[in-house]
């Protein structure tokens, strides 16, 4: 288990993914099982979300959600100080980490100091981003993902495919095989209920051993110092109540001012994320257990991670910080629906991943600079976003910011092209030459191999040598 999800310290993108973005995309596109699984997932999400728009006015809730989140980001420093003070008042510890490495050092050190051997985790993008699992494993700890989808991926030694539904790209029989391998027996049922029941028992064993529970945070509420953890399975409740220590890892932008704002966002989140008006469990945790309580963690640690977020405030990308990680833009994106999340090579995939991965990594990162080009700019993401982030605009800005040999060459080519076509004389000369070349290459009115800019076209189709084309 110690080698899964290997990544270099520092970056957000996975360093163990193979090939370029283009190569990974081509591999994903030719995987028929994957496309079927993605289709099923996106369709069922779409049906739920349409019902939310129709019956619960999801679209009308967007404007207020956007206002709340934009205000939160503007007030971020003050909200974070308030949050910090309130958590401490409730008996918790707060740590501000400048980057992932610092956050990992703190959590690993804590686990060592307390003699923890097994760490139970509930699903968290922030810990995926900071590569906490690797850090804990390097320190000799056993890390168990307890969200069913995440556990399946841990067994498969794969990266998540979606923010909310990490294992959407695997089907039932693929899951059954993984469970058989983990349990070391063929005695694992094939039906969905049986698989879920099997996982429940295996993971309860882990909860019995875990000395530390690590969760993410969907929202922090500054006015009371409460962290909100939204889930359906109940594993986050176990993670936050059974082990002796609870560590909550929160991206610094995930804070709202008060319960009035929290109520609105907590309603919007499941509607956009899973197409339902409520998640099954929402855990609202304020500090460790009180002295007279018989269960709950004795220690509560809130780790607030900057990781490049603070630097985005006040820039043209500030609105990306409003994101509540619902995953709606992924499901609505025709690119993501065709290739899935793994091709992106980052824990954050889809439109929001294509925007924030390079921002958090820095513009020079070869692992993520092409990501903003993984979009047709159709705008479906911006329309789906429940907090009104203009994702297509951010994608365009991210493209402008991306600088790679490929983008520089195509920039030069397009400038030359535009100069050629801007003047009638050069335009006419160009077109005359092009017609001659077409006629020389064409057979019976069609050309099937063209040089230069025509090569891409004729790779997959013929070009007519006269207009209108001959049938």
């Amino acid at each position: 288990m110690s080698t899964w999800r290997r990544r270099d310290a520092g970056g957000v993108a996975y360093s163990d993914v193979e090939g370029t973005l283009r190569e990974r995309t081509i591999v994903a596109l030719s995987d028929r099982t994957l496309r079927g699984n993605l289709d099923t997932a996106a369709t069922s999400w779409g049906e739920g979300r349409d019902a939310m728009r129709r019956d619960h006015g999801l679209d009308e809730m967007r404007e207020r959600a956007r206002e709340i989140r934009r205000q939160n980001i503007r007030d971020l420093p003050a909200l974070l100080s308030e949050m910090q003070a309130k958590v401490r008042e409730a008996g918790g510890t707060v740590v501000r980490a400048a980057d992932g490495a610092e956050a990992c050092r703190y959590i690993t050190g804590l686990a060592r100091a307390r003699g923890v051997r097994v760490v139970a985790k509930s699903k968290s993008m922030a810990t995926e981003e900071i590569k906490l699992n690797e850090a804990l494993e390097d320190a000799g700890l056993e890390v168990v993902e307890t969200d069913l989808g995440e556990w399946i991926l841990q067994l498969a030694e794969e990266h998540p495919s979606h923010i909310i539904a990490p294992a959407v790209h695997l089907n039932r029989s693929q899951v059954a095989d993984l469970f058989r391998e983990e349990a070391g027996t063929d005695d694992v049922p094939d039906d969905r209920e049986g698989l879920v029941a099997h996982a429940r028992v295996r993971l309860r064993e882990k909860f019995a051993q875990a000395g530390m529970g690590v969760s993410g945070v969907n929202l922090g509420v500054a006015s009371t110092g409460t962290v909100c953890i939204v889930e359906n399975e109940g594993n986050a409740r176990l993670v936050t109540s059974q082990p002796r220590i609870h560590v909550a890892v929160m991206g610094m932008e995930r804070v709202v001012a008060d319960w009035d704002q929290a109520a609105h966002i907590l309603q919007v989140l499941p509607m956009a994320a899973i197409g339902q008006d409520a998640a099954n469990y929402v855990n609202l945790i304020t500090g460790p257990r009180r002295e007279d309580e018989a269960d709950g963690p004795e220690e509560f640690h809130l780790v607030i991670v900057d990781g490049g977020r603070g630097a985005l405030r006040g820039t043209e990308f500030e609105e990306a910080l409003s994101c509540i990680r619902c995953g709606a833009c992924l499901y609505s994106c025709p690119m993501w629906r065709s290739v899935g999340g793994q091709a992106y090579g980052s824990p954050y995939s889809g439109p929001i991943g294509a925007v924030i991965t390079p921002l958090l990594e820095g513009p020079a990162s070869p692992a993520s600079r092409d990501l903003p080009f993984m979009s047709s700019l159709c705008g479906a993401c911006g329309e789906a976003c429940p907090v009104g982030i203009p994702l297509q605009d951010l994608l365009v800005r991210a493209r402008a910011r991306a600088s790679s040999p490929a983008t520089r060459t195509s920039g030069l080519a397009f400038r030359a092209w535009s100069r050629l076509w801007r003047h009638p004389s050069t335009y006419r000369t160009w077109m005359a030459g092009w017609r001659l070349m077409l006629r020389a290459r064409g057979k019976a009115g069609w050309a099937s191999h063209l040089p230069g800019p025509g090569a891409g076209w004729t790779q997959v189709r013929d070009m007519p040598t006269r207009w209108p084309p001959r049938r």
Partner: protein
Amino acid sequence: MAAAQVSAAPVSTPLVEELLASLSRRKASGQVAAAGQAGWAAARWMADAGVTRAVLADDPLVQEIGLPDALRRAGIEVLTWPTGQAKREALGLEGPPDVCGVTVPALAVAERGTVVLEASAGHGRGIDVTSRHHVALLPADRIVQTLAQALARTFDGSRPVPSAVSLVSGPSRSSDIEKISTLGAHGALTEHVVVIT
């Protein structure tokens, strides 16, 4: 369950009706019972579900409705929070499998079928989530319409904030296998709310 409703002659309100409808939408169940019948109704639901052991929140309401007696008469073992069980048994890895956690929600949200559980000395965080079944005993006057109202009341600043508040909306489920919702992931497989009028 219909019999319990009729014999208890409960008083229902639109808020109660909406809560019951939302619960069934969330794949939970619910019934209305007068205080004098509620203990009996809860015990009967548990017996029907095959429950052999109940873990009760230490709340005055549990005694008021005579639940411990009703359970014993139904042959169901009664434990009261804190149970003092060892970890493996508390997690259901040892002991009888058909355990039912009995909670007393501080509030409920009618429009989305949510019960609001607050952790306290008598009300452990694990009561409902570690058990296979979950019964919530809910006085009817604790039902509010919206989540915003419930959260405003829970965190109104008039008392110390509870260490843990859980909004529970139906049995535990997972859609991680083929995006199809399957009940009984980590938490309770069934949830039944007895609304007490």
